[in-house]
């Protein structure tokens, strides 16, 4: 009997406690930078598209929500002709980001993407592509991979093969 009265009193004291609820739209919580939210396509510091249309993200995607078509520009550089992510299927697992060799596809901290119409959740390339380098401001794939480093030329590193001449048919 006494314990019941004590319970009532303790609960009554909660009247003066701070409320734990965060009133979301007015008051936003800090979101950690590694949050897996809306997917974007980034550009390298010189403003070119990072994506080389290698299809690795599309392959890695467990729900097959990424579809793209590769194309080549006049300099022989690959780029996606279209790049489509169906966010109504996406589970925000981040596998695409891990698979990407050029750090082009990145998950951001934005999660407010509700829509009334399901088709509006299918994002095209122009919706995905941003103007900046995203989370990696200085990274440029073509300036890091396949280049000579200090003291070693191309293909001279340990367990490294000489560069392949892509212009010949010889093995």
């Amino acid at each position, binding site marked *: 009997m006494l314990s*019941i009265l004590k319970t009532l009193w303790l609960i009554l004291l909660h009247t003066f406690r701070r*409320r734990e609820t965060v009133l979301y739209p007015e008051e936003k919580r800090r979101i950690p930078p590694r949050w897996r939210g809306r997917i974007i396509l980034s550009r390298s510091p010189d403003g070119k598209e990072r994506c080389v249309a290698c299809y690795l993200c599309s392959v890695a995607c467990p729900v097959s929500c990424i579809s793209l078509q590769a194309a080549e520009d006049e300099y022989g550089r690959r780029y996606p002709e279209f790049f489509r992510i169906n966010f109504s299927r996406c589970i925000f697992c981040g596998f695409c980001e891990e698979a990407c060799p050029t750090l082009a596809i990145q998950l951001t901290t934005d999660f407010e993407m509700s829509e009334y119409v399901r088709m509006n959740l299918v994002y095209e390339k122009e919706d995905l592509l941003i103007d900046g380098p995203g989370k990696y401001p200085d990274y440029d794939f073509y300036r890091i991979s396949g280049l000579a480093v200090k003291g070693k030329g191309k293909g001279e590193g340990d367990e490294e093969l000489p560069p392949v001449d892509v212009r010949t048919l010889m093995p």
Partner: protein
Amino acid sequence: MTVNLSSFIMPLAILLILLIVSAWLIWLERRLLALWQDRYGPNRVGPFGLAQVIADMIKMLTKEDWVPPFADRAVFVISPAITMVTILSAFAIVSFAPGISVASLNIDLLFFISMIALNAYSPVLAGWSSGNRYSLLGALRATAQMVSYEVFMGLSLMGVVALTGSFNILDIVEAQRPLWFCIPQFFGLVVFVIAGIALTHRIPFDLPEAENELVAGYHTEYSGLKFGMFFVGEYLNVILISSLITTFFFGGWLGPVLPPLAWFIIKTFVFICGFILLRASLPRPRYDRLMALGWKIMLPLAILNLVVTGSIILASGY
């Protein structure tokens, strides 16, 4: 029998206000529960979330009103109405202030007990007619609980009647002018409050509708407006019991400075909040414990209270 306009308007106004207030109590309960659980509760629709009730009502009214094919249709439809009718007619005797009441009989208190007794049919018939085992279990529990606690409720009020010498609500309130009955009838108050909670079957005595055991107990199969009747009926019941605690033990509308109606509303409001506080803090007892509490503690306490009150009245000689 004088039939004038005000004798129609008064009951109608009281009825409407009660229905509106009981719907609004849903909002109050959610806000208070949230307050005591360090949350906010509904605060989006309208100022302070007050229009949440309207939204809920629209949702409930536009839902499909479904009668299961295995149900006993006639009884299934009648039983939610029983709870509304009995509780609303029990309000007839509640005197909100001098002159503001639907009726004043010389057997007010007994009329209230009889309406509460008839209210027991609502869960019983609802549970039986649903043709669902969980509902039937809820109905069985409701029967045993309500029939038992009616006894204690009636007995606990007899002390008040003995002190007043009348079953009339006005007499009972007027008799409390020197001293509210919550002091000489403290044990009567305790029994009445506990029996009141049991009869409204709210937490902690909500065994007939225990969600984690019986889906929703006797109203499992109900939807739409019929469920709404049970839902609002529960809150009406809370208002009824709270206002009667006020009337029988806390001096009704008596009080200084403020007008009588204000005092009545304030006191009733405090007890309604008390009901919600109980819901916020106490767990549900086991069923046999509930019955044991009733028959082994409440009944002796109520009888003892009555006997002691009677002997004191006899000894003091009036």
